[in-house]
């Protein structure tokens, strides 16, 4: 039985490929993950230049309500900016921001098949020998993101560029606002952390960097040799302090119960790899501020997922699971980072 989106998607792609004929979409199926976008894989076939072609592609479509409300234009631009660089990303093909074609905005990218993303598989035992290689690649690539020049990448035209001493305030204001609008019950631990963050601001950022915004184990594709083939999920990408990205991975919930950052390496080792690749330094005081901030940001995301379910905008189980699984764990992570657990 074919998926009802297939003929509509085929019509859209045909309109983007005027030289092609017999454009057809088959085998469209939704794949797991993607709480902020609906993610599907499909097969595109067409004729062009007298030959038949076949491509495996990915469709990322906005849901009615999302775990994270973001601009897909920004996400698309971030992918495009890094394609072909030392930061591996899938190739983006088309961005559609109107609702007519598929009811919600979406973009289409090439599928990178044959790789894994799930942390559960990475830590199940079969990859133990290559975990040091994954760690080396993970923080080296993050260092490359930090080192990149946002202006040279063309990203200052689609992302706001805050002053170096305003990066922290812009992010904290944004995420505190999420609590103000989305929390379904009082959050005394997160609110106390926000007060501490405001009272103890970090030093100005050492440079303005691209910040991926969700760079953690689980958001990249890896293989059996420990190589990383693509960094995914750029929906929270913005410009800011590069330490924000390094510290997001130090949120204790991303240790996956292994006692290692990202489940992969001791913090000192991760920092050393990142410093080598980025040419930047990780000031411990600033890094602590950003780690606590990221615990608050994480809680903001889980609070937002609960709100999307409660308001009826998105009733899928993926919106409930982070809230049930992580709201209290994130509170404990905040206590831990504040030295109160």
């Amino acid at each position, binding site marked *: *039985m074919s*998926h009802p989106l297939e003929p509509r998607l085929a019509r859209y792609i045909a309109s983007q490929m005027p030289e092609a004929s017999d454009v057809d979409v088959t085998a469209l*199926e*939704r*794949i*797991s993950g993607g709480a902020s976008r609906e993610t599907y894989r499909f097969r595109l076939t067409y004729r062009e230049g007298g030959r038949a072609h076949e491509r495996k592609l990915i469709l990322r479509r906005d849901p009615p309500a999302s775990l994270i409300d973001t601009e897909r234009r920004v996400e698309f631009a971030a992918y495009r900016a890094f394609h072909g660089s030392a930061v591996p990303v899938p190739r983006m093909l088309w961005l559609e921001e109107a609702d007519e074609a598929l009811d919600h905005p979406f973009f289409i990218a090439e599928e990178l098949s044959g790789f894994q993303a799930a942390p559960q598989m990475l830590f199940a035992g079969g990859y133990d020998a290559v975990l040091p290689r994954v760690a080396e690649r993970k923080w080296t690539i993050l260092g490359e993101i930090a080192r990149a020049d946002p202006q040279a990448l063309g990203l200052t035209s689609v992302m706001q560029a805050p002053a170096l001493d305003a990066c922290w305030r812009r992010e904290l204001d944004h995420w505190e606002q999420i609590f103000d609008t989305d929390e*379904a*019950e*009082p959050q*005394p*631990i997160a*609110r*106390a952390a926000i*007060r501490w963050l405001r009272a103890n601001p970090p030093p100005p950022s050492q440079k303005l960097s691209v910040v991926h915004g969700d760079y953690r184990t689980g958001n990249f594709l890896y293989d059996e040799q420990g190589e990383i083939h693509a960094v995914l999920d750029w929906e929270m990408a913005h410009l800011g302090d590069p330490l924000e990205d390094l510290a997001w991975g130090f949120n*204790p*919930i991303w*240790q*996956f*119960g292994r006692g290692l950052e990202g489940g992969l390496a001791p913090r000192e080792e991760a920092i050393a790899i990142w410093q080598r690749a980025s040419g930047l330094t990780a000031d411990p005081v600033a890094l602590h501020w950003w780690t606590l901030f990221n615990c608050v940001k994480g809680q903001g995301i889980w609070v937002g997922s*609960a709100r999307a*379910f*409660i308001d009826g905008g998105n*009733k*899928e*189980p*993926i919106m*409930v*699971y982070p*809230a*049930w*699984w*992580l*709201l*209290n*764990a*994130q*509170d*404990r*992570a905040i*206590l*831990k980072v504040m030295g*109160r*657990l």
Partner: protein
Amino acid sequence: MTPSVPSVLSELAGLLMRNAAPGVPDAERASALGLSSMLLAVAAEVWDGAAQNLVQENRALATLLRDTAAEADLRLSALRNENARLRARLIEDHILAEEAGDTERQEAIWAELRASTVRRMLSISPV
């Protein structure tokens, strides 16, 4: 638990019914059922102790805040509403203690906040 367990179970009932029908793509059915099973497991874990934990926490908060915990209605929804009222008061009290430099009061609040995360902790908690 937020969203509330009854609201989630109600939604899962509809989801399971939809996935029992023919024609649902295999990958979508597998994803829906896999996540549903994890949510049901969490609901099962918290079910028996939910009222006990809320009553215990509301009493602890009321004592700390010199308030009176309302316990006339022992439905989980009523206990949750009372818990939200007391935790909102706790935030105000915490701010006052910080502004006054009352470290003893702050430590008492932090101790209760720490205890609250133990009451709410799941067996699958990553922290």
